[in-house]
């Protein structure tokens, strides 16, 4: 490590990370609540009615960010899992474990809101379209990773086994993302890209971004809260946990 700057590796130890996570939670919790409120207000009252899809399109403001988060969180989980496997820092595996339920929840929300949108638009709750199917596979993968972890008693082995499975499943993420381009299916293509001008109105774009950040903050809060719980559970025999418990008595 270079002498200048904070020592980031310090926070790779659960003991140092526990209080840091505690301090960070309010910083994400407040934006999560505020942005969700603003986002929902914009979704229902500010964003104009779509001239083709009517009011039903408004569910997109939840659906799209949830779908983005489902994929993004999977990648985060896989990266943490890989770090846990290669560098073998204990915290990485704990983070991977903490992210999985949040990711599964967003995947479920994306599928559910998608079904609500699909009913009026496509006339069916569910269509066996490439993107829907691969998002469903993503949900199965999240569940598989969690189930494998739950089935193994030894935490170190559980970390490594579920981490490997998470890594193998990463193959699916690009398939979901590009499925709309690779297969000409019912699901519409992305409406936003970094390079071209957006095909939607500015206010819709803003609503979408606000909701995305709200979800992101939410993911941070839940993962950090969960990882604090995991740290306490796994380090319950460590001295610092005992000391902390004594202080609060």
């Amino acid at each position, binding site marked *: 490590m270079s002498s200048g700057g904070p020592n980031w590796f310090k926070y790779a130890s659960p003991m140092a990370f526990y209080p840091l996570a505690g301090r960070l939670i309010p910083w994400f919790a407040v934006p999560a609540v505020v942005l969700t409120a603003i986002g929902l207000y914009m979704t229902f009252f500010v964003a104009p009615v779509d001239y083709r899809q009517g009011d039903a399109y408004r569910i997109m403001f939840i659906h799209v960010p949830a779908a983005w988060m489902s994929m993004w969180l999977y990648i985060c989980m896989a990266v943490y899992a890989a770090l846990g496997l290669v560098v073998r820092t204990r915290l990485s595996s704990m983070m991977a474990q903490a992210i999985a339920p949040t990711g599964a929840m967003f995947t479920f929300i994306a599928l559910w809101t998608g079904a609500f949108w699909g009913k009026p638009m496509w006339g069916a709750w569910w269509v066996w379209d490439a993107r829907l199917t691969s998002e469903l596979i993503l949900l199965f993968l999240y569940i598989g990773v969690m189930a494998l972890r739950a089935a193994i*008693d030894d935490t*170190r082995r559980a970390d490594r086994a579920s981490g490997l499975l998470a890594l193998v499943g990463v193959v699916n993420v690009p398939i979901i993302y590009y499925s709309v381009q690779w297969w000409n299916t019912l699901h519409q293509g992305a409406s936003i890209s970094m390079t071209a001008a957006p095909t939607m109105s500015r206010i819709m774009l803003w609503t979408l971004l606000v909701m995305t950040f709200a979800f992101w903050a939410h993911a941070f809060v839940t993962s950090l809260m969960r990882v604090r719980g995991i740290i306490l559970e796994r380090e319950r025999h460590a001295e610092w946990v005992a000391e902390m418990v004594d202080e609060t008595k």
Partner: protein
Amino acid sequence: MLEAVDLECVRGDRRLFAGVGLTVAPGELLHVRGPNGSGKTTLLRMLCGLVKPVAGEVRWAGRPARELGDGFLALLTYVGHHNAIKDELTGPENLLVHARLCGAPDDAATLSAALERLGMKAYGRVPCKVLSAGQKRRTALARLLISRSPLWILDEPFNALDVGAVATLQQAIQGHLQRDGMVVLTTHQDVPIDGAVKTLHMGA
């Protein structure tokens, strides 16, 4: 020379052992002793690279065994708690598979000589599932007789053996030590072997 420094093993919540160090020089035998559940088998598996230590490392000739990879594995023969005998195959077939796998001599003469020395020649044509526990153990130990590797790691090798077979195995170990081989073994019996015998006591 085999060397292990500061090995630590954690199983679930329990620390099985910590700070275990050992050295085995050519011609030496290390006898690992300790009560049941003290981590003898785990220590042996750690030396083979089957179990990753939480801390510490295993070294061969001063270099970490993990870096040497297959090069290190080529130097050792491991006979574990389980016999690794396929019930459906005959004794010679089992031995042949092992020989191919480890690059040991695999001609029929060597294999049958090894089995004969352990008194298993008469059973060359029957599948191993009809053999008794002791006979299976003998077939597993025949691996040592064809092995050319300098390091033997044996987990309870005397288990289930009768007096005659114990004597044969002792001779084999003795001969291996005289050829500057190294042996690490666990057993609850005393090891009546002349030469450099070291003992490592594992706590409960």
